[in-house]
């Protein structure tokens, strides 16, 4: 019933084992502590606060957490409860916090959230660009300093010292920071304006097109009416009248097409500029890098079939199952013949060729193979 529902949050729904309460299907998970339905829970609600003092009814997913200093997940209702009356000590770390200091959580992992917040803050101050440095090395050194400060802040190393360094930097480079801020703002504004301009252009074009169409339609109507009139009034030959009218219409459409083509060319210009890539063409790919002599001059493959016992099965195979894997009989023959002529003229080694006593890396002193 509606009346009961409005105060529903006060009543506290019990969570049964087999099914969840309807309003919390997506929010709660299996590890939500199972609440036994006793009289205390109906009014006392569900989960106990970390501070152990009061209870909340549901643990909600949209956690809000304090400024990166504390990283405590606190739900919205608790924030309302604790901090509406002004700054209050945090129930866990007892630091005085304001309601304003809470930001909604965007990442599931709180460490990530903290890191993002730190970086956002630092990026506002340390915004020097590459052009502000004489060379690349100086720029990279600056970036490394910034990263060091960030790392310290994220991992709570030497926090007061790091803060002091940040302040020092801000004081020293106040002018440059300002300047860079201005520059970024200007850039952002320029971009926006560009977008605006484009949008307006597009709209204008659409408008024009529409007007064109209107005009065309009207023209056609007028033509038709004029033809009919002329046929009515004049006594000239009917076909000639129609022909003249048609010529008029044609001339007019040609004139219009010329004007529209001028407009389209600007779009084409943009497209062509985008398509123009100044990439260096890739190095041509040579798939076979090795260059062996494969005894080609020592044999010649017979163009017809060989009389060959071994390949009978493959040749008789009507359905070609054996050739399915890409087996080409001619290649097999070629390889066999190549094997037959490979090294045919290699004289065998004679005499005590310097063959060292086989000493494998796995041998120990007595010549035993040491199994790794």
């Amino acid at each position, binding site marked *: 019933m509606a009346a009961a529902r409005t105060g529903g949050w006060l009543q506290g729904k019990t969570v049964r084992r*087999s099914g969840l309460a309807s309003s919390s299907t997506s929010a709660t998970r299996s590890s939500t502590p199972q609440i036994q339905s006793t009289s205390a829970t109906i009014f006392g609600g569900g989960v106990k606060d970390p501070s152990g003092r009061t209870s909340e009814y549901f643990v909600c997913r949209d956690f809000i957490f304090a400024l990166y200093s504390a990283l405590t997940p606190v739900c919205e209702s608790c924030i309302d409860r604790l901090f509406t009356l002004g700054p209050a000590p945090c129930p866990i770390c007892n630091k005085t916090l304001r309601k304003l200091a809470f930001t909604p959580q965007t990442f599931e992992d709180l460490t990530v959230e903290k890191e993002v917040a730190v970086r956002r803050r630092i990026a506002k101050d340390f915004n020097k660009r590459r052009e502000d440095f004489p060379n690349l090395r100086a720029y990279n050194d600056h970036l490394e300093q910034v990263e060091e400060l960030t790392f310290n802040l994220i991992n709570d190393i030497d926090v007061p010292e790091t803060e002091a360094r940040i302040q020092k930097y801000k004081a020293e480079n106040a002018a440059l920071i300002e300047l860079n801020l201005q520059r970024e703002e200007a850039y952002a504004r320029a971009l926006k304006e560009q977008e605006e301009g484009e949008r307006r252009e597009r709209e204008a074009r659409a408008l024009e097109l529409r007007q064109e169409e209107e005009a065309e339609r009207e023209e056609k109507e007028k033509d038709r009416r004029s033809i009919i009139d002329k046929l009515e009034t004049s006594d000239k030959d009917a076909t000639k009248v129609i022909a003249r009218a048609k010529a008029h219409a044609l001339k007019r459409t040609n004139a219009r097409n010329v004007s529209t083509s001028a407009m389209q060319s600007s779009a084409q210009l943009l497209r062509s500029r985008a398509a123009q890539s100044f990439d260096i063409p890739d190095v041509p790919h040579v798939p076979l890098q090795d260059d062996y002599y494969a005894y080609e001059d*020592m*044999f010649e493959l017979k163009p017809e079939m060989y009389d060959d016992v071994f390949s009978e099965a493959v040749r008789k195979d009507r359905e070609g199952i054996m050739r399915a894997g890409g087996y080409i009989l001619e290649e097999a023959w070629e390889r066999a013949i190549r094997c*037959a002529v490979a090294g045919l003229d290699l004289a065998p080694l004679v005499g005590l060729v310097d063959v060292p006593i086989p000493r494998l890396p796995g041998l120990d002193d*007595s010549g035993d193979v040491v199994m790794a």
Partner: protein
Amino acid sequence: MATLAIEPPQENKAKKLPIYEASTQFRNWRFSFESLAKVRGSMNAVAVAAIRKKIEADEPGSSSDIPFLTADEEVLLVKHYITMISRLSGGFKFPEEVEATGITYLKRFYLKNTVMDWHPKNIMLTALFLATKTSNAPLSLEGYTRLIPKTAPSDVLDNEFLVAQSLSFEFSVWHAHRALWGIWLDVQTLPDSTVKLSPDIYNSALSHIRASRLTDAEFVYTPSQIALAAFSLAAPEVAARWLESKNSAAHTISPNVIEEIKTLIQTQGHPTNVEAVREVDRRLRLCKNPEKVPGSKAYMAKKAAEEKKAEEKRLKKAETLQKAMDEGDPFGSEIPKSRVGLVDYEDDDDDDD
């Protein structure tokens, strides 16, 4: 095939490397007869010295009358096990490639190790198993050991890395029977094919190649030469004519080489005398390296030494870790953990229970 838009860079007068000479078989496993003998001899001497030392450490004075094997006897034993590989391959109906590769692996292994350290019985099984894998005819370990009597999977697996390491992980072998097939195809392009090539010739040549596997031919000659020799034993005139056709200014093939191989096959390509092998085997049992025999004193001693070294390493590591822990967090100061709320949001278990 699409044509390349760009031509490959022109080799200006540089001699291209023949493809066989780029293979490891040519580069690392090519010897002369003399150097083969030298390698085997020195391997044998080193092994005997080492084993003698171990036995002396065990029981001083007992090693003087142990009949150690000579290099030739080792070769004999290996030869015997090569025939065993052939028999096994026949039983499993492996393709020729597997059998040939297995035999090659076995022979190469015993160029780098001695029989007294590793008995060929298990090495043979491992070599054949490896060969099935590298020749793209793999079968499961259970399937393999089930059909071989008195074999446990561990017999095969224990030595696998050892064999691979002894082969320097060079598993690709160029075989003579492939070259034979090539010759068989190529003689059909000879201009005057008066001889009707019957399969008998091919089979006879193949049997000669199988005989050649019992010899050291593949370490000295190229597979094409061995194949030509085998073919020449089967059909001399055709082989001679084919050789003629291949002989040219750029490639001078010496027929003497072929003759050498032929004699080699005919003299040494016979299976071994079973009695002699049995004799060698008996002596082997006496002179085996005690370290490799599980259960002997030397083996235990070696194991203990290894254990100690590993233990020391572990202790040292624990020490350094402990030091790091004591001097503060080894990873640096921690980011303060956000207080764990009452609800564990990391728990992604979405069901109710």
